[in-house]
C-alpha cells in the first residue's frame, strides 16, 4: 500500500473510536436535556458508554481466550473431539517438551538473577560518579531495541568463521587473540542457552537499573552517612544497608523479569529457532500452532504450562492489590 492509503486507514481507524465516545455522549446529553423529569438512567448509560469498548476488547482478547485455551487443551488438533488428558500425556513423553521445561527453568534462574544483580551494582556505581547519568542512559538503551534487533546484534557478535579465516564476530576475534580456537557458539548444546540468555540480560539490566536508581534515592542519606562515619566499607554498606532496604524493589523487578522470561520467544525464534537444544515453551507453542496445519490441542497445553508458571505471581499481585485497597 502507498503512504497515502496507509495514512487514510490509520486515520479512519483512530477517528472511529474518538467519534464513538464523542457522539454517544453527545446523544446522551441531548436526551437528558429533552427529558422533562430527572433522567434516571443517565448515569447507568454513561457508565456503559465509558466501559463497554474496553470491556468488549478485554472479553474477546483476554477473558474468553484464556478459558477457551484451557478447554482446547482437552480437545484434539482441530478442537472438535474431546480427548481427555491425551495432549498432556503426549507432552510429558515428548522430548522437546522436556528440553523446553529444563531450558525455561534455566532461563528463570539465570536471567532475573543476573539482570537484578547487574542492575543493582550499576545503579550503585552510577550514583557516585559525575558521568553516572550518561552511563545509565547507555546501559538502559537496549530496552528500546526489539528482541529481533538485539538478536541480529548478538548474532553478529557470535559470528563464526573457520580457524584459518579472519573472524568478523567480536567474541571469536577475542577468543582467537587469546589463543583459543574459534567456536560456533550458538551450536554448542547446553552452553548455547547461556549465550542466548546473555542477550536477555543485556536488555533487562537496563530495566532493573532505572527502577533501582529511583528506589536508591529513597534511602535516607543520614543512614548511609552514619554507617560511613562508623567506618563501614562500601561493600559492607551495599550488602547490609542497601540490599535489605531495597528488598521490596528487588522482588518487584524479579517478578517483572520472570514474567517476561517465561514468555521469551523472539530471541530464540530469531537466533536458533529451537535448534541445538535451545527450545523453550513459547517457541514450541508457536511451532505447534502451525506445524502440520496446526495442532490447537498441543499448542494449548504448552500455553497453559506458561500460564501455570505465572500463576504464583498472579496470586501475589492480587493479594497485594487487596491489601492496598484496604488502606
Amino acid at each position, binding site marked *: 500500500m502507498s503512504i497515502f492509503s496507509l495514512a487514510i486507514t490509520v486515520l479512519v481507524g483512530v477517528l472511529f473510536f474518538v467519534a464513538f465516545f464523542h457522539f454517544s455522549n453527545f446523544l446522551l446529553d441531548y436526551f437528558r436535556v429533552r427529558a422533562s423529569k430527572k433522567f434516571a438512567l443517565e448515569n447507568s448509560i454513561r457508565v456503559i458508554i465509558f466501559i463497554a469498548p474496553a470491556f468488549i476488547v478485554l472479553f474477546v482478547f483476554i477473558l474468553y481466550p484464556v478459558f477457551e*485455551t484451557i478447554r482446547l487443551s482437552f480437545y484434539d488438533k482441530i478442537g472438535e473431539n474431546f480427548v481427555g488428558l491425551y495432549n498432556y500425556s503426549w507432552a510429558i513423553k515428548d522430548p522437546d517438551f522436556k528440553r523446553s521445561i529444563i531450558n525455561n527453568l534455566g532461563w528463570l534462574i539465570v536471567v532475573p538473577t543476573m539482570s537484578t544483580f547487574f542492575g543493582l551494582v550499576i545503579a550503585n556505581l552510577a550514583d557516585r560518579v559525575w558521568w553516572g547519568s550518561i552511563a545509565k542512559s547507555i546501559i538502559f538503551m537496549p*530496552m528500546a531495541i526489539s528482541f529481533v534487533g538485539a538478536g541480529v546484534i548478538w548474532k553478529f557478535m557470535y559470528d563464526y568463521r573457520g580457524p584459518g579465516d579472519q573472524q568478523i564476530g567480536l567474541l571469536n576475534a577475542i577468543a582467537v587473540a587469546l589463543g583459543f580456537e574459534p567456536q560456533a557458539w550458538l551450536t554448542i548444546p547446553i552452553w548455547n542457552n547461556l549465550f542466548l540468555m546473555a542477550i536477555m540480560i543485556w536488555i533487562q539490566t537496563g530495566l532493573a537499573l532505572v527502577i533501582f536508581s529511583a528506589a536508591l534515592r529513597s534511602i535516607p542519606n543520614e543512614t548511609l552517612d552514619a554507617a560511613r562515619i562508623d567506618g563501614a566499607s562500601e561493600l559492607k554498606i551495599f550488602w547490609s544497608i542497601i540490599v535489605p532496604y531495597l528488598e521490596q524493589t528487588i522482588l518487584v523487578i524479579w517478578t517483572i523479569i520472570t514474567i517476561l522470561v517465561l514468555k521469551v520467544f523472539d530471541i530464540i525464534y530469531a537466533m536458533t529457532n529451537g535448534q541445538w537444544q535451545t527450545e523453550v515453551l513459547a517457541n514450541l507453542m508457536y511451532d505447534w500452532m502451525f506445524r502440520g496445519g496446526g495442532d490447537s490441542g498441543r499448542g494449548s497445553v504448552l500455553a497453559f504450562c506458561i500460564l501455570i508458571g505465572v500463576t504464583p505471581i498472579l496470586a501475589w499481585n492480587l493479594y497485594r492489590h487487596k491489601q492496598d485497597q484496604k488502606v
Partner: protein
Amino acid sequence: MKKITYTSVLSQLLLLFFVVAWIVPTFGLFISSLRDKDVLAISGWWTSFTNTEINEIYRTEGKDAQIKEGNYYFIKSNLFDGGQEKEIFRFGVTSKNIDEYKVGETALFKDQTEITVFENGDYVWKSKEEFKKKKGKRIFVSAKSPPSFTLDNYKEVLLKEGLGQAFLNTLAVALPATLIPLIICSYFAYALTWMKFYGRDILLATIIASLVVPLQMCLIPVLTIYNDFGALFGVSAKSFPGIWMAHTGFGLASTTFLLWNFLKTLPSEMIEAARVDGATHYDTFIKIVVPLSIPSFASIFILQFLWVWNDLLVGLVFLDKHPSEIILTAKLKELLGSRGENWEILTTGAFVSMTVPLFIFFSLQRYFIRGLVAGSIKG
C-alpha cells in the same frame, strides 16, 4: 571537591567496564552498517578505523592508449578508475609473487617490457616495440585503504530489500495500536476511578490478573475468531484493523492499570466539585482529567508504542508475510533466514528497525523511564 580515593577510582573503572560492554555490540552493528559490503565480509568492524591492507588485481590499458616518445612506446595511465583514496605500497606482475616490488621500482615482464607503478596508482609501461595486444596486463598491488564509510547499504536495504515498505507497515500498525488502547482505556480507567457501579472491584481485580496472563494463552482462540470472521464476511483474516485490535486487547490491561494508577492520585475534591456544579462525567473527563493527564498519556504512549513497534509474535500471527503487510521485525527475521551471511543487509536492516525506538529513547527518555517506574512499583 571530593577527594580521589581508591574506592572511587575502582568504581569508575568498574562502571566504565559495564558501559563499554553494553555499548560495544550496538556500536559494532552501527559501524558495520556503514561499511562496504566486500570489506565487511572479510574483516572485523573494529579494523575499520585504521588503514586496511588489501590485495587487489588491476589491469593496465591496451595498445590503444600507447604513445611514442623517442625510440620507445609508452602507456601512461592510472590503475584505479579514479577517485579511490588507496595508497599502493608493493606490487607484482605475476600471480606467484604478488608483492615482489616496492612502489617506484621498475618491474620486468616476460616480454622484456618494463613497468613502474607509483603510490597513487599511476604507472608507466615502457616498451621498445609497439604494443600489439588490445588487452593490458595484470598488475597485482598491495594497497592501504583509509577508513571509508558509505550509505550504500541503506539505499540497498530500503529500496531493494523492501525494508522501506516494511517500515511504513510497522508505522501503520504501531500508531493506531497505540492510540486506540489509549483512547478506550482512558475512559475505562476514568470509570474505574471516579464512577460508582456494581462490579467495579471485580473488574479492577480482573485487570490486575490480566496483567500477567501470557500472550500465548490468547493466540489460538483469537486466531480462530479471526479466521471464522474472515470466512463469514469473505474478507482476509489478516489485516491492519485486525492487528490493531489484537494489540489493543493485549495491551489493554497494562494501559488501563497505569492510567488507573495515575488517575487515583488526582485530588477527588476537584472532580467532585465539577460534578456538583452540574458537569457530566464526560465534561469532567474531557475538560479536567485529560489536560491533567497529558504527561502520563505521554509515558503510556511511549511504552505501548515501543512494545508494538518491537513486537514480533503478534505480527507473525495476525499479519500476512506479503510485502504489503509484513512488519520490520518479521522482515528482519526473514532476512536472518534467507540472507544469513549477508551481514551488510542484516546490520543495516537491524539498524533501520532501531531508528524509531532509538529516536524516541533519546528524545523522550524521561517519559519512558517514568512510565516504566510507575508500572513497576505497583505492577
